C-alpha cells in the first residue's frame, strides 16, 4: 500500500484538487526537513498560476520544482543570496511559462549555490542541502536543491541552470538525469544572469522519458531572449539510434578509483550493446578550466554589477551617500565565493590585462570549439566523466573551493562549445550514485535521449532511501 507508483497518475493524484495540494505541501515540508532541498514550498500558490491542470498532455497535472535563480511570478527569487533575500518575482521565466501552459505545476523554489557559483550548494546564503543518499554528503551544485528533490522523490523533475556543469554534476551526485541543452535551445528569459555566453536552463529528472518531454516543452526561440534559437528543421529526425559510435578519453586523468571504474564499466556496457568505441585525445582539455573561469568571472563581474540596492533587493541602511550605500550593500549582500568571482572578473577585464586574460581565453575557446567540431565528424557522441570524484562530505575540507573549480573541466567543455550534454546514473561508489555524461553536436539532444534510453533499458532512476511515500489511507485519486 505504501509503495509509490511513480507514473503520471501518482503525480497527478498529488495535485488533483485543493485538498490534495494542501496534503502534498505538508508531505513536502516533512520530507524536505530532512534534506533541505527547498527554499520555498507552496504547491497551492503554484497551482493558482495555471488555468488547466487536467489536460491530456504528458505533463498536465505533474508537479515540478524550480531552482531559485529562475523566475516564477509571486514566488521568491533569492538566487541563494542575501542581496535578494526579500525579492518576490513580478514575472515568470519563459521556460516555466511553457510548462504552465502544458498544465505542469510549480511547487516551490530550490536551493543553490549563491548565483549558481559553486559545486556543493554549500555556498547558499540560507542553508546547506544534504545528499538524499547519505545526509553527510553534499548533493553537488550549483543546482543541488533541484537534484536532491528529484532523487528524494519529492518531484519528478526540476529546472536548474548549467553554466559550467551546475545541472550535470548534482545530477551525477544524486543519481538523476541532468540535461544541459544546446546553448540557446531554451530561452534564458527569467534566468538570473551569471555568465551569459555559457549558461543554459537545464532539466533534472527521474527518467529519460521525463527529461525528453520537459525539453520538448521548454525548447524554442523566444523574442525575449535574443540568443535563443529554434533547432534547425528536421534536426530531431536525424537522431541516431543504437548502435552508435562513441568517443572516449584515452586517458581520463585525475579520476578517483570509483569514478574511473564506473567510466570503464560504462564503456564495456556500450561495447556489449554493439556500439563502436573510438579512443580520443582531447588536447584542449587542460585549458578548459582557466578559459572557462576567465570568461565566466568576466561576464559575472558585468552581470552582477546590477546589484546596487537601488532598484530592488536588500539595501544597506543609514549610509551617508549613494556610493557608500552601493559598496556596503554589496559588501554585506554577497558571499565570499561571489566576491571572489567578481574580483577576478573585474581584474581580467581591467585595461592593460584584457589581452592577457579575457581576449586570450576567447581565442583559446575558438581552439576548443574547433577540436570538438572536428571530433563530431568522427563520432556520434562523446562519453565523459562528470566530476573526478564520486562525492564529498558536507562542511569538510575534503575538496577546497580551488579543487572544486579545477574539477569542472569535464563539464565546462560543453558550455564553452555550446553543445548539449546529458548526465545519467551509471553506477555506485559505495552508497553514493556516480554519473557519466554523453555529449552530442549542437541541437542533437534527441541523440542523447535515444542513447540514454537504450542504456537505461527504459527504466526510471532508483530513488534514494527514505524517498517520499504516501501515508496509509491517503487517497490521491479521490477528486479526479
Amino acid at each position: 500500500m505504501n509503495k509509490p507508483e511513480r507514473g503520471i497518475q501518482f503525480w497527478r493524484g498529488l495535485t488533483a484538487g485543493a485538498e490534495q495540494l494542501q496534503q502534498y505541501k505538508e508531505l513536502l515540508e516533512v520530507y524536505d526537513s530532512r534534506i533541505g532541498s527547498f527554499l520555498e514550498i507552496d504547491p497551492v500558490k503554484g497551482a493558482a498560476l495555471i488555468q488547466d491542470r487536467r489536460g491530456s498532455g504528458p505533463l498536465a497535472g505533474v508537479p515540478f520544482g524550480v531552482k531559485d535563480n529562475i523566475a516564477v511570478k509571486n514566488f521568491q527569487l533569492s538566487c541563494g543570496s542575501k542581496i535578494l533575500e526579500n525579492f518576490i518575482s513580478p514575472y515568470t521565466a519563459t521556460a516555466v511559462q511553457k510548462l504552465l501552459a502544458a498544465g505542469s505545476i510549480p511547487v516551490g523554489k530550490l536551493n543553490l549555490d549563491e548565483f549558481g557559483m559553486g559545486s556543493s550548494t554549500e555556498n547558499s546564503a540560507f542553508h546547506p542541502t544534504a545528499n538524499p543518499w547519505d545526509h553527510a554528503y553534499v548533493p553537488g551544485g550549483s543546482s543541488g536543491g533541484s537534484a536532491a528533490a528529484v532523487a528524494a522523490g519529492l518531484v519528478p523533475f526540476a529546472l536548474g541552470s548549467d553554466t559550467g556543469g551546475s545541472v550535470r554534476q548534482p545530477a551525477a551526485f544524486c543519481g538523476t538525469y541532468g540535461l544541459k541543452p544546446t546553448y540557446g535551445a531554451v530561452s534564458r528569459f527569467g534566468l538570473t544572469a551569471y555568465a551569459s555566453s555559457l549558461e543554459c536552463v537545464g532539466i533534472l529528472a527521474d527518467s529519460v522519458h521525463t527529461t525528453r518531454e520537459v525539453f520538448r516543452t521548454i525548447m524554442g526561440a523566444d523574442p525575449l531572449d535574443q540568443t535563443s534559437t529554434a533547432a534547425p528543421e528536421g534536426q530531431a529526425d536525424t537522431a541516431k539510434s543504437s548502435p552508435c559510435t562513441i568517443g572516449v578519453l584515452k586517458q581520463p586523468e585525475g579520476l578517483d578509483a570509483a569514478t574511473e571504474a564506473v567510466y570503464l564499466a560504462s564503456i564495456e556496457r556500450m561495447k556489449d550493446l554493439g556500439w563502436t568505441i573510438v579512443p580520443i585525445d582531447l588536447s584542449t582539455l587542460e585549458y578548459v578550466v582557466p578559459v572557462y573561469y576567465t570568461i565566466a568571472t568576466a561576464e559575472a563581474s558585468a552581470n552582477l554589477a546590477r546589484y546596487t540596492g537601488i532598484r530592488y533587493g536588500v539595501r544597506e541602511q543609514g549610509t551617508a551617500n549613494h556610493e557608500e550605500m552601493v559598496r556596503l550593500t554589496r559588501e554585506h549582500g554577497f558571499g565570499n565565493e561571489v566576491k571572489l568571482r567578481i574580483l577576478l572578473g573585474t581584474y581580467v577585464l581591467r585595461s592593460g590585462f584584457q589581452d592577457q586574460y579575457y581576449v586570450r581565453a576567447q581565442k583559446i575557446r575558438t581552439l576548443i570549439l574547433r577540436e570538438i567540431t572536428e571530433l563530431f565528424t568522427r563520432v556520434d557522441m562523446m562519453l565523459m566523466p562528470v566530476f573526478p570524484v564520486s562525492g564529498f562530505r558536507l562542511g569538510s575540507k575534503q575538496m577546497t573551493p580551488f579543487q572544486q573549480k579545477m574539477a569542472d573541466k569535464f563539464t565546462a567543455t560543453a558550455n564553452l562549445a555550446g553543445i548539449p550534454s546529458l548526465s545519467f546514473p551509471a553506477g555506485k561508489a559505495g552508497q553514493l550514485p556516480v554519473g557519466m555524461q554523453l555529449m552530442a553536436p549542437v541541437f542533437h539532444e534527441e541523440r542523447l535521449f535515444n542513447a540514454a534510453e537504450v542504456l537505461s533499458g527504459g527504466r526510471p532512476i532508483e530513488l534514494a532511501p527514505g524517498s517520499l511515500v504516501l501515508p496509509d489511507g491517503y487517497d490521491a485519486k479521490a477528486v479526479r
Partner: protein
Amino acid sequence: MDIEELKTTARLAMLELHEDEAAELAAIAELAAIAELAAIAELSAAVSGMLENFSLMQKVDISGLEPTTHALSEQNSGREDVIVSAESSGKTDNSGKAEAYNLNNPENLIERAPEYDNNHIVIPNVL
C-alpha cells in the same frame, strides 16, 4: 595579487575594502602564519591561486585565432523596429493574457525598489 592591486580591483568592482583592512592585510602579509585567519587575506590568496591557473593560457599559441564570444551564431539577432505587444509576441499566459509576464505593468517593477516615492526611486545624496 599584491594589496594595492586588490584594492584597485575592489574599488572598480564597487566592493568595500576599508583602508584599515588594507593596513591590517599588509601587516598580516608579513606574518604569513596567521594570514589564513583573515577572510580578506583568504580572498587575496584565492584570487592569486586562480590567476596562477589562468597563466596556463600563456602556453597556447593564439596567433591567427579569432575570439569566440558565443558558442553558436556570431551574427546579431535583429528585429524590425516596431512596437510588439505581449499578446502578438506570444508572451501570454494560457488564457491569452499578457499579464503573466507583467510586461505592461511598470508599477510592479517600481514597487521592488527598497524606497520609492510615486514613480521615483529614492536614494541617498549623490553629491
